[in-house]
């Protein structure tokens, strides 16, 4: 990676800057109009087939501003305003991530894969001993080989008509990851996907992830985000996950980006009867993060455990927006989000739970607890329950607090320094979110990473040789 990117065409700069609010959409409209052929040429038909509609939706929607209720706390328009390069020509990343990347979560014996910027890295793939019938790899390539399978699911959950960033991603995304687990198949080995951001110019990536678990299938997926260079990154990500009847999906996301990274991630989960899904979203280090999570409980007996944690300081910004749709009876949703905000960090949590008419015996529990360590840290929390069924058990609670002064003093009286006492309390505060993790190696490792993060020993990720 070097400065001749532009010359070599690796990055296609957006030259169409406009200053005023809402104007930032224009440069993407012009980019797509000019580059559609190039984008499509380096992608697959299944992905290409949705671009035209996404483009129409994007033009109609434009970027949200903070006047939009769903984006009250994150200014999308502003985030997309600067000039970023894109790799629409799909030039290879000139390093082998398997050589240079040492994961922060070692000893997990995961099946390890990389998406470098927004291309699936399929050179030097490790020998996969995944069960028969499982598909795991480049979304572009697998949708060329299995157009019917991918076409049946791709773009069906992430609606381009409602959100400009989803529309933009659908317009521009050329590749990403596909995981398909056929009926009844259990993938024992956790699958790990590391999203690497590498560039020497300010850079934008748009990636897609499609997860299909057929009835009774089981899989565990850990996705880690690593921005590795000191340029500004803008990453959009759309994840669609179909979870069939009786299927189980554990899905973890660990963000360890630089403060110059803006991340917009959309996770859409669709659950059939008696499916069991665990989502753990952890923002360990970031710049600006907006995670939108939409869960549809479409079959009776479905269970979702949605948990999230954010540790932010300096001027970091973390916004989690969740929507759980109880469409049918007998489903359970448990939601737990915790934030620790230091310095001038900002956090936002908006969690809506909708219990539709007839969705009797719904059990729903939503908790959002936040710790503001300084007076400058700001937390906005907005729980929302909408219930149209009468025989349900629903609760929600949100708190924003400071560290318990009496607990701090108690520890100091025993000789524990104030700083250490604060760390112990902050660490304890997020402990239950970490304990929600059902992957032992990841849970143990996270306890350590969280401690390091609180101790300020982690500017960026730890183990990799790429960023030093």
């Amino acid at each position, binding site marked *: 990676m070097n400065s001749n990117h532009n010359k070599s065409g690796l990055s296609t700069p957006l030259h169409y800057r406009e200053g005023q609010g809402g104007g930032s959409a224009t440069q993407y409209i012009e980019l797509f109009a000019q580059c559609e052929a190039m984008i499509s040429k380096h992608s697959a038909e299944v992905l290409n087939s949705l671009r035209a509609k996404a483009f129409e939706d994007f033009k109609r929607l434009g970027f949200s501003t903070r006047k939009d209720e769903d984006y009250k706390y994150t200014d999308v328009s502003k985030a997309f305003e600067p000039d970023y390069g894109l790799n629409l020509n799909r030039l290879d990343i000139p390093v082998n991530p398997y050589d240079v990347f040492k994961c922060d979560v070692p000893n997990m014996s995961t099946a390890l894969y990389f998406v470098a910027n927004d291309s699936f890295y399929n050179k030097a793939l490790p020998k996969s001993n995944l069960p028969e019938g499982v598909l795991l790899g480049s979304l572009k390539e697998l949708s060329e080989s299995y157009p019917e399978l991918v076409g049946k699911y791709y773009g069906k959950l992430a609606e381009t008509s409602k959100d400009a960033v989803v529309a933009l991603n659908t317009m521009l995304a050329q590749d990403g990851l596909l995981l398909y687990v056929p009926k009844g198949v259990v993938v024992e080995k956790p699958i790990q996907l590391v999203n690497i951001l590498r560039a020497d110019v300010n850079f934008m990536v748009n990636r897609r992830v499609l997860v299909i678990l057929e009835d009774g299938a089981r899989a565990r997926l850990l996705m880690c985000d690593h921005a590795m260079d000191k340029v500004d990154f803008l990453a959009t990500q759309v994840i669609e996950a179909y979870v069939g009847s009786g299927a189980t999906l554990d899905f973890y996301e660990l963000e360890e980006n630089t403060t110059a990274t803006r991340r917009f991630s959309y996770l859409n989960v669709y659950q059939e009867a008696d499916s069991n899904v665990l989502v753990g979203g952890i923002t360990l280090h970031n710049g600006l993060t907006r995670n939108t999570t939409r869960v549809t409980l479409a079959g009776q007996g479905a269970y979702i455990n949605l948990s999230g944690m954010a540790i932010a300081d300096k001027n970091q910004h973390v916004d989690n927006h969740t929507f759980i749709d109880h469409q049918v009876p007998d489903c359970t949703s448990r939601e737990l989000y915790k934030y620790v905000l230091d310095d001038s960090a900002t956090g936002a949590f908006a969690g809506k739970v909708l219990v539709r008419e007839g969705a009797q015996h719904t059990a729903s529990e939503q908790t959002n607890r936040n710790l503001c360590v300084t007076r400058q840290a700001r937390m906005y929390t907005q729980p929302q329950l909408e219930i149209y069924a009468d025989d349900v058990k629903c609760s929600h609670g949100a708190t924003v607090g400071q560290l318990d002064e009496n607990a701090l*003093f108690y520890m100091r009286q025993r000789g524990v320094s104030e700083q250490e006492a604060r760390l112990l309390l902050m*660490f304890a505060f997020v402990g239950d979110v970490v304990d929600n993790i059902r992957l032992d190696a990841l849970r143990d490792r996270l306890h350590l990473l969280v401690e390091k993060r609180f101790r300020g020993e982690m500017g960026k990720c730890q183990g990799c040789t790429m960023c030093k």
Partner: protein
Amino acid sequence: MDKDSKDYKEQMQAEHSTPLHTGRGQGVGPMGPLLSIKDLHASINGKEILKGINLEVKPGEVHALMGQNGAGKSTLSNVLVGHPAYEVTKGSVTYNGKDLLAMSPEDRAHEGLFLSFQHPVEIPGVSMVNFMRAAVNEHRKYKGLPALTASEFLKLMREKRAIVELDGKLANRSVNEGFSGGEKKRNEIFQMAMLEPTFAILDETDSGLDVDALRIVAEGFNKLRTPETSAIVITHYQRLLDYLKPDIVHVLLDGRIVKTGGPDLAQEIEQRGFDWIKREVQTLP
């Protein structure tokens, strides 16, 4: 009022000079007080609670501090260990020759000061093990000693737990979380055993303990004492003092020490209450 407090002070100093108060410190040779409180005034939320405390504790001495609820006993304890909610408005405290009030709470602890809290706080999510490891190792660091290894530390935990017969299950839980009143008090003395302070303040450690637990905790405390260990024991009851055998007994009333005597004073209070002392104070010139 100023004039009154001067009277109390003189009264107390006079009593201090009686042979009654040489206490256990005697065997340690001629020495000054370990703790010396002079005309201490302190307030919380702008309200003055301590109104001129004078008190000296020599090495090895055990002082009992008695007085009705609201007199300021816990306030005095908290001020001595540096609770930030209290403001010292006047006076001085010297500990081991050093200006105690200038020290951070953690350094007061490192210098050997320990408070068994009247209401120990629950700290969900912080395990006793992690908490005690941090505390013990910071004490060691202050003394220039290396941190204990994991196995050394766990061995120490086991040994000290035995002294107060603290259930191993409690030691594996979060600090005080879900502990009964009595278990919390036992846990305080366990922590004292771990940290081996030279000056302990027990703030109503006996309340909430049944007869057997009281014996275990009190005998545990006595086992931990060395000839140099000093203590201020705050209690309403003679039964704890029967075990701890105070050298000196003080009565605190409305932020001042109004009466000081020997062990028999505690017995008299047990029988007669405080009213007679209040009347005595009112008739003072």
